[in-house]
């Protein structure tokens, strides 16, 4: 218990500092966890309490993702979302997978590393677009749709990888059935839901918490992964009043997710003998592969490779979803690799998000200067 309080207190201080410096807090929560945990000073141990809180953090993160899904809007924007999304998926999954496989991970491990390698941090991308005042740029919209597409791929990936020994078709039918029931509940019970959310006593927040936990606990009965259950619940609730649900679920998500990150660091096992060269190579590749996908997207969608630099700068950061994948399916070396990649890319990403516009302008000016040196007779 004391360890838990210490960890929470450290995170509070870190949150204050990172907000002040305008850098993403996630890498620092993980680092703090590593320092306090079994690979560091050993002050904090994971226990029943921290495991429960961490699990809640993951559940609420995915519930939020479900709430944010706007399927009808993706359908309306299909061509742009699909083109950039597919470029991003193919380039990064491929590079991530090949790199991990060549470094000696087995197929499943490589697939998990590749997914964590592929999926950028939605939270960091959107925060950096707002904080760096980039919303008006055309590339900002592309980045936002990319994040949405990545979320969809993650859902599909979670469904496939968590199927275990189950028949995949049977699992998909079950997930579809769960979705249908939840959608029906949201549709027919919309008035009831809205009447609860409109109250200003403790009921809305209690209802939101109970709904998420109840749905998650049905996972065992139905043998549908917990992750799928809460995403489906979020997607169903999104058809009623998603803003109200976000408002009531936010306190839980904010607190539990911090615990999730710090205890991910605490339980991280560095004794497995991680190869620093391999991890450094993966980190560098993670930055380069987003540059490649960014440049291609820039050329295809915006007709300019320079636009790709803007996309690259804002999508380097890997974050919450990569860690979620590592916590769910990664063990030992896989989790360590993903954690280091998240820490490195999110710190590098916060700088590139701030300065990639300058870089882009620099390249542009450099390119413009060249024709001036040409003899005037050429005109």
């Amino acid at each position, binding site marked *: 218990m004391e360890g838990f309080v210490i960890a929470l207190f450290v995170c509070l201080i870190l949150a204050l500092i990172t907000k002040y410096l305008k850098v993403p807090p996630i890498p620092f929560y993980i680092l703090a966890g590593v320092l306090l945990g079994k690979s560091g000073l050993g002050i904090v141990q994971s226990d029943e309490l921290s495991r429960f809180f961490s699990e809640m953090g993951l559940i609420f993160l995915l519930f939020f993702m479900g709430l944010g899904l706007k399927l009808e809007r993706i359908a309306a924007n299909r061509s742009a979302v699909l083109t950039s999304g597919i470029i991003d998926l193919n380039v990064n999954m491929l590079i991530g997978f090949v790199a991990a496989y060549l470094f000696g991970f087995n197929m499943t491990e490589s697939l998990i590393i590749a997914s964590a390698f592929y999926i950028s941090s939605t939270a960091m991308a*959107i925060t950096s677009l*707002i904080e760096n005042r980039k919303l008006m740029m055309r590339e900002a919209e592309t980045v*936002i749709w990319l994040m949405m597409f990545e979320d969809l791929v993650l859902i599909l990936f979670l469904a496939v990888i968590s199927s275990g020994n189950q028949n995949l078709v049977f699992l998909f039918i079950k997930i579809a059935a769960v979705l249908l029931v939840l959608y029906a509940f949201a549709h027919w019970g919309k008035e009831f839901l809205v009447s609860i959310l409109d109250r200003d006593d403790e009921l809305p927040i209690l209802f939101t918490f109970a709904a998420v936990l109840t749905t998650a606990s049905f996972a065992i009965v139905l043998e549908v992964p917990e992750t799928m259950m809460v995403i489906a619940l979020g997607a169903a609730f999104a058809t009623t009043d998603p803003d109200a649900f976000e408002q009531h679920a936010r306190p839980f998500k904010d607190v539990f997710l911090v615990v999730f990150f710090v205890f991910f660091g605490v339980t991280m096992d560095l004794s497995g003998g991680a190869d620093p060269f391999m991890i450094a190579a993966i980190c560098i590749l993670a930055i380069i592969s987003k540059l490649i996908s960014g440049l291609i997207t820039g050329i295809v969608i915006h007709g300019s490779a320079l636009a790709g630099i803007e996309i690259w700068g804002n999508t380097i950061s890997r974050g919450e979803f990569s860690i979620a994948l590592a916590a769910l399916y990664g063990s030992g070396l896989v989790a360590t690799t993903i954690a280091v990649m998240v820490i490195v890319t999110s710190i590098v990403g916060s700088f590139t998000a701030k300065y990639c*516009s300058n870089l882009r302008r620099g390249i542009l000016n450099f390119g413009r200067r060249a024709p001036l040196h040409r003899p005037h007779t050429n005109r």
Partner: protein
Amino acid sequence: MSAMALRSLNLPGLGTKYEFETEKGDMVAIFFTKSGLIQMYTLQKGCRTPSAAEMTPVEARRLGNILTGAIIEADQESVEIAFSALADLRITIHTFYVPKSVTGKTIEELQIRAKTGATIIAVCRNDKNIINPPPAFAFEAGDAALVIGESDQIKRFEREIMVD
């Protein structure tokens, strides 16, 4: 896209975007982010990088008031509301800080309604609001009065009552 066309877009995870092009070809974009803050971007025609301002909801409303043409002075604010369904009825609400000449007098003594046609609907005193003050209500130094009426009535109120 023709000039003045307003484009609105709901961006997942971010909020709502409104964008339009002015007749002169400048671009204006407003973003209502989920955090409640509002960002306004303007991009001059021919320029590559926009400039941006971030506002709280209160600041954004102030900007809105200025743009709709209401009078705003340093300490005083006014809002004009137009009801297009009611024969284009335009009602103005204006705040005034009471001058020395008025302190100690009641609303009845000042004959505000008879002289100007405007009505005092609220008075702010020491950060407390007195809604719908009675005719016997006496002003004190430092009071801020909220006056409602047509713009002519408000002007008359300013000329007749708010004199030092």
